[in-house]
């Protein structure tokens, strides 16, 4: 099998698994218990917290563990909105956010908040002027993702945070796809809230964290025990947190080396496809894009049919379009970038990771042109053009 869907999730690193195993088997104690046996679980959590904090240059006290990126996004947005309800009810976000952010905003809209969705340009990047113009007296939060999961576009986070700071507005960024790929420093970026997730960086699923800058206040979403300084009730996912910590430790070590290796493979794939297959469009900016992501529209055909054909060859990828009841629903990200419906139906995402090799890329470049040709032969649009 050739796995090229690292933006969806990553395989677990062997070292991470090894580190987790004792906390699944032997150290099963509840970290909140008072006997000495429980101390090891508690220590392990704090140890992991310092690794997570270290990867993003935060203080450990600023890291709250969650059940993943989705919860971190929900926590940041709803937790902030509920805290500030009396002062204002306007939130600014973008049209290309992950559903964890978009649906949280939709929910808030239903209960009386106002949401502004910023446009993006053809590269999937927001306009800072539009952001400034959208800020109002009652704006309580700006939430803009660091890097997009579908096309990999990278936002000017530092400039966004400058604008938010100037206006005294809390800034949240969903950095789930940026973590482990971009060297993140919350101090340098000066963001207030930042969401991250373990399973995108070779850690286990179901664990993540929200960075909450010192002094920034939120209303907790989970009520119950006093875990995570009363900010997130529920017995801690000890093995998950330990795994996340280890994944962060390794990520920090491998950051530079991974980028070099994976960028080379991605560029080879991109160049190869451009050379071998006519009528395609690479989505996103050439530079302001995650080095592991390649999102391409293949004209005259549809993404799912390419994906399933690749699956027959043992190659795992992902397509933007999802078929809902009446019609194919193209990706909201591609549509926001101004890509026409017909074209966005034919999108396919390759996202690479540290276990890919040049042989994987060669294999894709061998089978993909045949698949595209076969599907185009079936397509009425292709025939019209060349038939």
């Amino acid at each position, binding site marked *: 099998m050739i796995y090229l869907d690292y933006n969806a999730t990553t395989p677990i690193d062997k070292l991470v698994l090894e580190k987790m195993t004792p906390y699944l088997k032997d150290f099963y104690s509840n970290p909140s218990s008072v006997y000495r046996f429980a101390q090891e679980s508690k220590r392990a959590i704090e140890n992991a917290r310092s690794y997570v904090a270290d990867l993003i240059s935060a203080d450990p006290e600023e890291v709250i563990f969650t059940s993943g990126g989705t919860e971190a996004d929900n926590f940041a947005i709803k937790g902030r909105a509920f805290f500030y309800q009396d002062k204002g009810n306007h939130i600014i976000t973008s049209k290309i956010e992950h559903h964890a952010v978009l649906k949280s905003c939709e929910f808030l809209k239903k209960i009386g908040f106002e949401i502004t969705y910023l446009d993006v340009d053809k590269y999937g990047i927001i306009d800072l002027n539009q952001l400034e113009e959208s800020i109002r007296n009652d704006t309580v939060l700006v939430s803009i993702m660091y890097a997009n999961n579908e096309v990999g576009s990278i936002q000017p986070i530092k400039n966004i945070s400058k604008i938010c700071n100037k206006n005294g507005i809390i800034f949240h960024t969903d950095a789930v796809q940026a973590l482990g790929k971009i060297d993140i420093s919350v101090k340098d970026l000066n963001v207030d809230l930042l969401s991250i997730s373990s399973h995108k960086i070779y850690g286990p699923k179901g664990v993540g964290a929200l960075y909450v800058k010192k002094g920034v206040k939120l209303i907790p979403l989970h009520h119950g025990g006093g875990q995570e300084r009363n900010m997130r009730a529920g017995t801690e996912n000890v093995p998950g947190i330990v795994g996340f910590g280890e994944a962060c430790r390794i990520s920090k070590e491998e950051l530079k080396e991974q980028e070099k290796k994976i960028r080379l493979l991605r560029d080879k794939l991109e160049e190869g496809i451009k050379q071998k297959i006519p009528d395609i469009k690479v989505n996103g900016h050439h530079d302001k894009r995650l080095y592991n992501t390649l999102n391409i529209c293949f004209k*005259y*055909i*549809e993404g*799912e*049919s390419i994906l*399933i*054909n690749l699956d*027959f060859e043992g190659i795992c990828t992902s397509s933007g*379009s999802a*078929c*809902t*009841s*009446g*019609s*194919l629903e*193209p990706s909201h990200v591609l549509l926001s970038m101004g890509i026409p*419906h*017909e074209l966005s*139906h034919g999108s396919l995402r390759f996202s690479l990771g540290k276990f890919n090799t040049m042989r994987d890329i060669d294999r894709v470049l061998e089978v993909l042109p045949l698949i595209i040709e076969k599907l185009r*032969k*079936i*397509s*009425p*649009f292709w*025939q019209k053009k060349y*038939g």
Partner: protein
Amino acid sequence: MLWKEWLVMSSVYTDKVLDYFRNPRNMGKMENPNGVGKVGNAVCGDVMFIYVKIEGNVITDCTFETFGCVAAIATSSALTEMAKGRTLDDALTISNKDVADKLDGLPPLKMHCSLLAEEGLKSAVEDYHKNNSQTK
């Protein structure tokens, strides 16, 4: 939403669907067809062209071209097989459910693809009648 509905909604393709998708029967444009049905639109993501050759009152050949997902390609291919050899009246009785049944079923979200196939054939037969009345 009921759990059962939710599970069905996220269901995958049957082996038959995948087989018709992988090895499409009767694919491609037809030379000198007696009727062509063009249904769907590219914005919604599914377009089918159904071509028929008609001798006497019988569909002797039927081919397709499709832009769309796995289900769209599989249903149009299955439909062409079902239409071949039938009289016109008989062919018009082919329902979308018949097409789905031939493929051992479709995920509920993809049933509209089979509907498009049914409409494609009906529209091809209509086109044949229209061509015929003009030449008379």
